[in-house]
């Protein structure tokens, strides 16, 4: 345990009930599609059946003739400006390579036309009546095909910008070289090299993308959207539709999960244009198959890691090479690839020599995007597989190898500064790291010492244990900005207005808890309203694990200003210096015990003397991005006859600083680990030779259900991040990175085979087992 006393909090650090829990548990109509706006048009899409083709002719006459069809949009009647669908800060580090509708389609699922009609049935029927003549173009359906000499060029249009080398299908490149990598290998006692290939996977929020648009009474465009990035959505829609930004309002109500896929502007532009052109409300919802093949995915990657270490296990050189497949458009292409290195390499900062060589390529395949973990997921699979191999070569306990190499408090890594997000990163020193505690607790819980290498058999089932360690970040330093506004009411309650975006993560609640803590009131006295571009201050949005840290610090700063204003008023009321006053239990108190209530203060400020609205707006930009840490342990059983892998036990121990709401923080780890287990074992978008997603349903794309999972044990250790709000760091993403390497390492412990291609389906496991028998 750390030898210090953590601060004591009244509201923070308690598992307060989520502010939206009652509305959600009673099924109130709080989601986008629940609003039933009278007279709303329904929008359906025609998407490309071909991976790469030019539209020679598009004839909508038969569709237009269908009664109930109101508007059809194609490349012939829509804005042609190129943009990126990635909802990132401006200017976006993703290339402007997409059009609302293009005369060229680049993947199976690319948008060809949209029909707005009186009912969804009519819109869908009309879609089938649109006649399109395509001229086929040769398609690029793998990383190797994209990089081959003479490969078809996917983005040869002359109005695209921000592409590194379009002629070679290369969207982005990042190269970093620290120290002398080859000299490090030359001086190493042991060198291992591993190449891992990860698959296409989808976020699968249970609520698909959905946007409802309408015009308000002043003719302004209102978009109610299941988005993670309302402010970016407003900016991008205004740009694409050439509408003044002040004529657009984006509101995010409750949304049914995001996981990164809703950091993308996929429907807002079309709904906006339909509503602007027709003057009528309009609604677009992706079907589940469209969600799979036409929205966004986790970038598949090939990652090579080479490690060199001395006899003592201390790393001399770490070399990582990444090729990421972004599919047809470069959404998040540069930044996800950068994060493969920037979120993993600093973890092992003992190596003086580090090289990172990353590139992202276009293919005529489904489009990559932001997905919880954001590149770190793919990077950690390769890095933590290689670390396990290195431990094996050295004859060292994998736990011990990690202990000798991981970053500690007071240390830094050159990678923090070397790799940023579209620009240089930010130098930082780690100020909180309880990874040792995480490893100790996890190893003890799983029974590491007794089970590792024991090769327990149970009929055809072979048991094994595996582990891995991780770090992430808390927001994008020097880029992400969040603001919060707090105003005081007559009764001593407060309105908290935040641009931050709660995706179900509980951020409205924890941001409310931070305000309540500073203002000395229970959480019920903080009325939280978020994510409405007309009503709340700016926030970059919910991504990059930024909300608790960046938005949380903005709330803390705003609350501190409001507290000072309250003390000022109370000082006049109590005739005491403000500095000698304490706020707490909904009162302002003098050392002698004399006090006034916050209601007294509120009433006086609004109605009586020196009248003033007590309130403040504060902004925050992270000067650094403190990493949360996690140690992950699993016991698996591998059926040597069928190749099936079962997770017997899973323990994830996290350092997220002070958890503002422990139940919510545990929930983030549990959910992320569950998603990561699916990614490791079953989830894979199967792509046909023709570039078509073959399994776009929940029946064929298997995400974990309750019986598929062990009871995931999420444990939060005591920790305190000095730069965080009330000592907090992020937690939402890190857990998803852990299962793939942890399970791969456990399979190795159980049956002695290394799986480097994902997911670990029974077929792949059996193939690997047979490979051993043949070789052995």
């Amino acid at each position: 345990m750390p030898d210090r006393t953590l601060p004591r909090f009244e509201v923070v650090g308690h598992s307060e009930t989520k502010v939206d829990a009652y509305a959600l548990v009673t099924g109130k109509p709080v989601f986008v599609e629940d609003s039933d706006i009278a007279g709303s048009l329904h929008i359906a899409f025609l998407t490309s059946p071909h991976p790469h083709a030019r539209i020679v002719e598009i004839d909508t006459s038969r569709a237009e003739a269908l009664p109930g069809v109101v508007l059809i949009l194609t490349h012939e009647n829509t804005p042609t400006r190129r943009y990126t669908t990635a909802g990132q800060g401006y200017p976006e580090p993703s290339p402007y390579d997409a059009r609302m509708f293009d005369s060229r389609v680049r993947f199976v699922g690319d948008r060809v036309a949209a029909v707005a009609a009186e009912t969804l049935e009519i819109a869908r029927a009309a879609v089938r009546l649109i006649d399109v003549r395509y001229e086929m173009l040769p398609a690029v359906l793998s990383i190797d095909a994209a990089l081959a000499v003479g490969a078809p060029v996917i983005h040869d249009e002359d109005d695209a910008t921000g592409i590194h080398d379009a002629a070679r299908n290369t969207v982005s490149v990042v190269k970093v070289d620290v120290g002398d990598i080859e000299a490090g290998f030359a001086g190493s006692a042991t060198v291992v090299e591993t190449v891992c290939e990860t698959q296409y996977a989808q976020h699968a929020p249970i609520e698909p993308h959905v946007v409802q648009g309408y015009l308000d009474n002043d003719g302004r465009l209102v978009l109610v959207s299941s988005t993670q990035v309302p402010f970016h959505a407003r900016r991008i829609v205004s740009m694409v539709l050439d509408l003044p930004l002040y004529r657009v309002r984006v509101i995010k109500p409750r949304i049914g999960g995001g996981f990164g896929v809703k950091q993308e502007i996929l429907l807002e532009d079309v709904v906006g244009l339909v509503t602007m052109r027709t003057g009528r409300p309009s609604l677009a919802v992706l079907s589940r198959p469209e969600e799979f093949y036409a929205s966004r995915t986790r970038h598949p990657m090939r990652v090579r890691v080479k490690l060199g270490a001395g006899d003592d296990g201390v790393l001399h050189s770490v070399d990582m090479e990444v090729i990421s497949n972004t599919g047809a458009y470069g959404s998040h292409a540069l930044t996800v690839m950068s994060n493969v290195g920037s979120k993993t390499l600093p973890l092992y900062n003992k190596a003086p020599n580090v090289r990172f060589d990353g590139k992202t390529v276009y293919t005529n395949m489904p489009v990559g995007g932001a997905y919880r973990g954001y590149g770190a997921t793919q990077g950690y699979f390769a890095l933590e597989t290689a670390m396990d191999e290195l431990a094996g070569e050295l004859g060292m306990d994998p736990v011990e190898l990690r202990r000798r190499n991981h970053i500690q408090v007071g240390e830094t890594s050159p990678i923090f500064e070397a790799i940023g997000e579209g620009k240089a990163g930010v130098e930082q020193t780690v100020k909180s790291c309880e990874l040792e505690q995480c490893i100790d607790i996890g190893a003890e819980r799983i029974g590491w010492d007794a089970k590792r290498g024991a090769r327990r058999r149970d009929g055809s089932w072979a048991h094994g244990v595996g582990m891995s360690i991780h770090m992430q970040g808390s927001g994008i330093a020097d880029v992400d900005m969040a603001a919060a506004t707090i105003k005081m009411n007559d009764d001593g309650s407060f309105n908290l207005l935040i641009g931050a975006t709660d995706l179900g993560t509980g951020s409205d609640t924890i941001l409310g808890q931070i305000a309540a803590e500073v203002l000395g009131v229970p959480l019920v006295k903080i009325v939280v309203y978020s994510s409405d571009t007309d009503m709340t201050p700016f926030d970059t949005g919910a991504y990059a694990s930024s909300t608790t840290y960046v938005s949380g610090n903005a709330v803390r700063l705003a609350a501190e200003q409001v507290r000072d204003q309250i003390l000022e008023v109370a000082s006049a009321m109590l005739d005491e210096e403000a500095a000698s006053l304490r706020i707490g239990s909904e009162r302002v108190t003098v050392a002698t015990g004399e006090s006034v209530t916050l209601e007294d203060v509120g009433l006086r400020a609004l109605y009586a003397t020196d009248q003033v609205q007590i309130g403040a707006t504060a902004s925050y930009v992270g000067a650094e991005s403190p990493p949360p840490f996690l140690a992950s342990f699993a016991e698996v059983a591998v059926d040597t006859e069928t190749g099936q892998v079962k997770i017997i036990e899973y323990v994830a121990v996290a350092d997220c600083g002070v958890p503002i709401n422990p139940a919510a923080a545990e929930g983030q780890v549990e959910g992320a680990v569950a998603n990561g287990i699916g990614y490791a074992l079953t989830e894979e978008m199967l792509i046909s030779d023709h570039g078509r997603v073959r399994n776009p349903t929940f029946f064929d794309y298997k995400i974990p259900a309750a019986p598929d999972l062990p009871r995931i044990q999420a444990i939060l250790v005591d920790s305190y991040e000095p730069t965080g709000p009330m000592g907090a760091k992020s937690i939402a993403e890190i857990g998803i990175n852990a299962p793939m390497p942890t399970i791969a390492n456990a399979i190795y412990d159980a049956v002695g085979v290394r799986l480097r291609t994902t997911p670990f389906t029974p077929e792949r496991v059996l193939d690997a087992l047979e490979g051993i028998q043949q070789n052995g």
Partner: protein
Amino acid sequence: MKPTIALTINGIQRSVETELGETLLEVLRREGMKSVKLGCDTGDCGACAVLLDGSAVNSCMVLAVAADGKDVDTVEGLEHDGHLHPMQQAMVDAGAVQCGFCTPGILVSGIDLLSHNPDPTEDEVKEALGGNLCRCTGYVKQVDAILATARLQAGETDA
């Protein structure tokens, strides 16, 4: 002619006009039961689960006309005298609600389970939730909430 069907939704009899081929899901949402969610339309996610004559079904897989004359219960009908159903309260207390999109379906499956197995094991609860997909929680706190409800209800019957 549009078929008209009789449904008793949360104890209230209604006569409802339906379109040909319409599902129970569509009818219920149009009748204002927005707790019934569309997650897949293929019977694979459980977000649209309701109790049909007391048993959990995926309403996206039931033709509206097939529900003619039956009782349908949705989460809108769970509260009594302004009090949450104990399983709703248990979900809130356990921190089992993240985005909440799957929650109504989970409640329906949980209530269905306890109606015929009042004292389930943890594995039985997980099995009962096998048709409900949740992408946010990892199911840990949802399973705990259902087990807590069973304990609470057993306590009430013993007393």
